[in-house]
């Protein structure tokens, strides 16, 4: 293998070694944290070296396949453990290892005095390894392995505090973990079916093919695809079917409507986990999947209609639900759902670069916000309710400063990172796609985004402390530098793809082959208007909750807005009641069905009739037969006689 191949193979190997060492060898909290952080940091360094090597190649040659060994070889189907390193994988890998390393370092202080540090850091490393396998796989099955691996780590880390029966705001970690796992299985079934369909039609799961065998994306690009009978859906183009099934996987993993219900509950895990898995990396796997398979989605307009619709609905639902939350992490969780909606809309309308751009900037500023909220939670000893906060500006000045940066970036205020990526998506939807409904939904969502960030900053940092029992302190330790670096990223992240420079666009061109959009002065004015609106909306939220309403915010009571909006507010607070609907439509009927099967089918039919009934029938028959066995010798003699008469009679007459 060449030098760059070694580098590429080393990237996922380092976190794997970290996982093995932490899981089986080291039992010292400090050593666990340092090993875990060092392995991911080293992976980041190796990634930088690999990307530098990649950048030196010709643009068309920037796709390096490293086949480690053959995994499955059945007939013509040949699946290898192979790594793919191209510009798209490169940016994903940089994000995963870079943000991942910072979050590992943050965790050293955050998880200090935890009861199970070895377990925590081992799982965190396993997560990074799985995520790297997901983005570096050169075939869909290996990607699926990583996809399931990150799901498993998500399950394990949400349930890290499985012995706690109630974490704020009233979630049971073990149940939240199970919920995330089960909801994700629905999506995974879709991805699995998509793979089966691809295997049956194209005979390969490799993206671009290796060793002369062309991958399915190459085959699709050549236009060789047929129709498939999908039962009640009628005859569907294979590509559309694959795209819809993949979309199901994306909806599960990337927390889209209607399967996003697991993400708010996933906040039961430690906050760095929320930052790494449930904001920056794992939940963006769906976006990566669609961008990687953009050749399929480009040719399936009926599927992309669903992508856009679900994405824009999710953006709106997430943003409106975030407005009403009082739990500091739940605001960010719904915000993440909303931002993922933006990315999914972007891939749906064909703005793949914009989607990856937003994925990257969102990874930076949302990780910053989560880590900031983690620092607050740490400083307040596990208080997450914003009604009990207030006045933290004075007691936590460092966190305040970086949090403001994150909030401005998320709200899309010029010139922070979120402004460039979010407005690129909106502009693409409005101008290039002419999809004004979607664009308006996105603009409205971004106004809500600014509003809830203003509200959150006001509730958390402004005014006076509303709970005199809390004694906030700012002991950041190893949490300081990750916050600074991410804040730096949230400020300058937009430079990656500023109109006119468009580095990211050029970098991804070998994969996506997108033309550079020509930005006109109308778009500048458009972006200016949306930014001014967002700034106004953000200031409105800030002003309302720091100047007008703060006296009415009391611990354990409803938001003042609840007085005006009533049940609408309540409905938003419950995430548009999707959980409630699932409870009513699926969980309860399922429970009733199970109860019916238990009492009627199992107890009465199977136990009563089949098992005990057959035993009773045999008992009756035996009792009937036993009557002949009465012990009376003369009865036996009579039976002999009758028998003899019958036999002799038969012999004499019959013969």
């Amino acid at each position, binding site marked *: 293998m060449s030098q760059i191949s070694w580098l590429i193979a080393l990237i996922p190997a380092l976190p794997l070694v970290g996982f093995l060492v932490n899981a089986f060898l080291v039992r010292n909290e400090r050593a666990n944290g340092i090993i875990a952080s060092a392995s991911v940091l080293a992976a980041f360094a190796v990634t930088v070296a690999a990307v530098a090597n990649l950048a030196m190649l010709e643009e068309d040659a920037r796709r390096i396949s490293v086949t480690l060994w053959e995994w499955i070889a059945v007939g013509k189907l040949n699946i290898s453990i192979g790594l793919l390193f191209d510009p798209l994988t490169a940016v994903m890998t940089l994000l995963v290892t870079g943000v991942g390393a910072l979050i590992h370092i943050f965790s050293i202080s955050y998880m200090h005095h935890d009861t199970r540090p070895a377990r925590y850091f081992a799982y965190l490393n396993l997560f990074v390894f799985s995520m790297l396998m997901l983005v570096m796989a050169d075939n869909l099955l290996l990607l699926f392995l990583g996809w399931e691996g990150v799901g498993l780590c998500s399950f394990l880390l949400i349930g890290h505090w499985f012995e706690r029966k109630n974490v704020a705001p009233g979630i049971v970690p073990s149940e939240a973990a199970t919920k995330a796992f089960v909801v994700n299985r629905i999506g995974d079934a879709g991805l699995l079916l998509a793979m089966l369909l691809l295997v049956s039609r194209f005979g390969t799961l490799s993206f671009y093919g290796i060793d002369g065998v062309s991958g399915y994306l190459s085959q699709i690009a050549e236009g060789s695809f047929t129709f498939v009978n999908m039962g009640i859906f009628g005859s569907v183009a294979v590509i559309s079917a694959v795209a819809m099934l993949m979309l199901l996987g994306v909806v599960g993993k990337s927390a889209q409507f209607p399967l996003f219900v697991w993400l708010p509950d996933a906040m039961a895990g430690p906050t760095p986990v929320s930052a790494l898995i449930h904001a920056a990396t794992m939940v963006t796997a769906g976006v990566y999947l669609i961008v990687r398979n953009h050749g399929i989605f480009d040719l399936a307009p009926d599927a992309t209609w669903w992508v856009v619709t679900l994405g824009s609905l999710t953006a709106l639902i997430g943003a409106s639900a975030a407005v009403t939350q009082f739990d500091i992490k739940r605001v960010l969780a719904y915000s993440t759902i909303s931002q993922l909606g933006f990315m999914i809309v972007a891939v749906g309308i064909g703005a793949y670069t914009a989607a990856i751009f937003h994925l990257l900037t969102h990874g930076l500023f949302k990780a910053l916000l989560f880590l900031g909220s983690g620092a607050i939670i740490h400083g307040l000893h596990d208080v997450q309710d914003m009604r009990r906060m207030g006045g933290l500006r004075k007691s936590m000045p460092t966190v305040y400063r970086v949090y403001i940066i994150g909030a401005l970036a998320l709200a899309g205020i010029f010139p922070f990172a979120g402004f460039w990526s979010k407005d690129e998506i909106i502009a693409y939807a409005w101008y290039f796609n002419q999809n004004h409904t979607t664009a308006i939904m996105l603009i409205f969502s971004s106004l809500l985004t600014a509003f809830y960030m203003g509200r959150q900053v006001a509730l958390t940092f402004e005014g006076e402390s509303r709970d005199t029992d809390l004694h906030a302190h700012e002991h950041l330790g190893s949490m300081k530098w990750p916050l600074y670096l991410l804040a730096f990223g949230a400020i300058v992240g937009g430079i990656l793809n500023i109109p006119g420079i468009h580095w990211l666009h050029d970098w991804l061109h070998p994969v996506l082959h997108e033309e550079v959009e020509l930005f006109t002065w109308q778009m500048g004015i458009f972006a200016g208007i949306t930014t001014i609106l967002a700034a106004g909306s953000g200031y409105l939220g800030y002003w309302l909750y720091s100047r007008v309403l703060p006296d009415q915010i009391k611990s354990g009571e409803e938001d003042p807005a609840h007085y005006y909006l009533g049940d609408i507010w309540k409905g938003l607070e419950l995430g548009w009641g999707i959980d409630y609907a699932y409870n009513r439509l699926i969980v309860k009927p399922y429970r009733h069905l199970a109860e019916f099967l238990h009492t009627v089918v199992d107890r009465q039919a199977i136990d009563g009739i089949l098992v005990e009934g057959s035993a009773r029938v045999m008992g009756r028959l035996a009792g009937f*037969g*036993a009557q002949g066995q*009465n*012990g*009376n*010798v*003369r009865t036996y*003699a009579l039976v002999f006689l009758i028998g003899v008469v019958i036999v002799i009679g038969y012999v004499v007459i019959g013969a």
Partner: protein
Amino acid sequence: MVPTFLYIGLSALLFTIGVLGVLLRRSALMVFMSIELMLNSANLALVTFANEWQSIDAQIMVFFVITIAAAEVAVGLALLVMIFRRRQSTNIDAMTTLKG
């Protein structure tokens, strides 16, 4: 010369009496005697047919039957004595301990 069918008729009569005795009498001793009666009716039939066919085979069979009947009487009476000692009765209907 007495006609053969009279011998056979007597044999059948004796056998029927024996069967009815086994089926109807309650005393084990009487059942035992009825069995002997059936054996002897069979002997009579054998001898009659031997005479009819002028063959010696059936007569030899009769000796076997008599011998076995004697052995059977010895065993059967011993059993009967033991039953009487235990129960102070030979009522065969009371002996139902093998009831299923």
